[in-house]
């Protein structure tokens, strides 16, 4: 087990296209780090550079203190789980899992012990004699993980391992992966485009976009304190609302005016922070869960105003209300028992303790 250091790493392809534009990241021993971002953001390329499947154009990557730029994958002591599992179709489950150890000339008994141990952890002991063809998607995924576990490598690399599974199995395997990590504690780098996977699995989430790292932090920090508009919009589902607004300085207090003339007061604790934005156009960011039906009015910094729902989506445990404020789509999350119908105005409460103001030009959260 080991830490992974990524220093000023660049990946450029022929023709000058840069997939990764000089990223820095320190991954601690035993840590579970998830790289998340939309497709083409450079997350898979970064993972493949750690694995050695992709050459590093600039900067350096170190695993356990050793710079691995020029070390081939087989000598990096890493294991990787691929999106389509990449099991060898002509080998049985046992042979698939044992392959890496056989090549490294481990003694037969040791291989057997390790494979059986991994099979027990993953609950695939009855499948050891089968060929991959005879397995379901979830079982193949387990075998692919087993192949990584038996090697007891310094680092586990996961490349979108759950994308080929159906929704139900994905949730189940997600828990499984977390459980396995809690058991074996190997340093893990996990790539996904699904922010829910990132939030649920990671010790730290790395949000990437256009080849750069937008923000690194524990899931809760990213959720509550996003640093950029991209992170604010990417983490959380349904996504945060961004409403064009204007900050105004009136009689000592700051106010934010929304497109339809609604004015909300900036909480006192944030006045100093937002002072520089006074008189400027900004984006008012608020998550659907902080834009609800009126309740708990005894709390501080709740603004109440009237809006007209346009689309109602009952989800069971909650109801989503969609409406448009001069082109900006706004989503609110209300209690399913609250009566709401399209076209009938109702009162909404915005919890301003969780509001964000974003500079529309730089995309930075103020």
């Amino acid at each position: 087990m080991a830490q992974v250091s990524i220093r000023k790493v660049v990946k450029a392809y022929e023709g000058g296209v840069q997939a990764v534009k000089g990223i820095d990241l320190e991954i601690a021993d035993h840590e579970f780090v998830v790289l998340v971002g939309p497709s083409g953001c450079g997350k898979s390329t970064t993972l493949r550079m750690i694995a050695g499947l992709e050459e590093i154009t600039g900067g350096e990557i170190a695993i356990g203190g050793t710079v691995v730029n020029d070390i081939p994958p087989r000598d990096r002591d890493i294991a990787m789980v691929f999106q389509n599992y990449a099991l060898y179709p002509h080998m049985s489950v046992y042979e698939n899992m044992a392959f890496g150890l056989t090549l490294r000339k481990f003694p037969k008994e040791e291989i057997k012990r390790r494979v059986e141990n991994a099979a027990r952890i993953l609950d695939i002991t009855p499948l050891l004699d089968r060929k991959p063809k005879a397995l379901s998607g979830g079982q193949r995924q387990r075998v692919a993980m087993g192949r990584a576990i038996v090697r007891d490598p310094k680092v586990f690399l996961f490349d979108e391992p759950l994308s080929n599974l159906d929704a139900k199995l994905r949730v189940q395997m997600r828990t499984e992966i977390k459980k396995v990590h809690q058991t074996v504690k190997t340093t893990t780098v996990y790539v996904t485009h699904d922010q829910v996977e990132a939030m649920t699995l990671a010790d730290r989430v790395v949000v990437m976009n256009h080849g750069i790292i937008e923000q690194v932090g524990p899931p809760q920090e990213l959720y509550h304190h996003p640093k950029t508009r991209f992170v604010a919009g990417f983490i959380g589902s349904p996504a945060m609302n961004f409403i064009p607004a204007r900050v105004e300085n009136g009689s000592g207090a700051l106010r934010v005016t929304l497109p339809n003339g609604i004015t909300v007061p900036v909480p006192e604790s944030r006045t100093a922070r937002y002072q520089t934005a006074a008189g400027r156009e900004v984006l008012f960011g608020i998550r659907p869960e902080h834009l609800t039906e009126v309740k708990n009015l005894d709390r501080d910094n709740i603004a109440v105003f009237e809006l007209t729902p346009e689309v109602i989506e009952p989800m069971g445990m909650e109801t989503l209300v969609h409406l448009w404020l001069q082109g900006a789509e706004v989503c609110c999350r209300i209690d399913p028992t609250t009566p709401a119908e399209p076209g009938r105005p109702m009162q909404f409460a915005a919890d301003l303790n969780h509001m964000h103001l974003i500079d529309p030009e730089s995309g930075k959260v103020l």
Partner: protein
Amino acid sequence: MSASGATMTAGRTEGVTSLQRFTRRRSTIAFLMTLPLIAVIGGLVVYPAGYAMYLSTLNRRMTEFIGLEQFAILLDTDTFWMVIAQSCIFAVSAVLLKALIGFWLAHMLHDIPAKGQRKWRGMLLVPWVIPPALSTLGWWWMFDPSYSSINYLLNVFAVPSVPWLGEPWWARTSVIIVNVWYGAPFFMIMYLAALKSVPEQLYEAAAIDGATGFQRLRYVTLPMMRNIISITVLFSLIVTFANYDIVRVLTNGGPRDLTHVFATYAFQVGILSGNVPRGAAVSLFMFPLLAIFAFFVLRGVTRRNKEES
């Protein structure tokens, strides 16, 4: 509702004759559509094969039924045993060399970036595209005792001339060389297709698992190509075993009948010497040899298909 539906169905059935129903059946349509092919195979394969079997049971003047006498006579002649041996040596060594060279070429091509690959692929396919009777004439000229261009080159490097077609072992080698030259591109193109179908991620997984280049070939590429290799070898073995044109043009069976294979010997005996029944018997000898081999190869392929893909 259901009653009226039943009446309607009954009404429709009454108007349809049994002939119409027969022609509408899917299996009937399928049969009719494959009929042209069945006719061609029947006329060009089944009928001649059956007729050859009938012919092989007649006496030389084709007036009398003599059972398996022709086969007995054949098995009693040294020349025929020599033909069996030469056919086997020729087919097995030529197919092995074709398979190895084809495999090597396919790997070389596979490593060329897609842009430049086309022209190399095209050039390497040329030997297979030229009609073998023509290209063999070219080789015949290169092997000619007086004007051999190969010998000329050898002489330049102070190597003595080689009696390519004059000496039995060299003549046997020459027919194999020409057959390999002609047939290797077929293996190459089949293997190239197989190589392209191996998922890149298997190689990546193997690289991470610790496999060297050779181990990737041994544990990933070869097992993934096994079916293509067996089918290509089987197909090529059948074609090479039955080869006629190369031997006919290059050596015509000589020197001293030592390069004859089944097909050229059958022609020699049946047409040139006028013993049609014995010629038929010679050509029929190939069948059991190839049938046994084909059985085992195809059984292996079916079994693997069931287990893997």
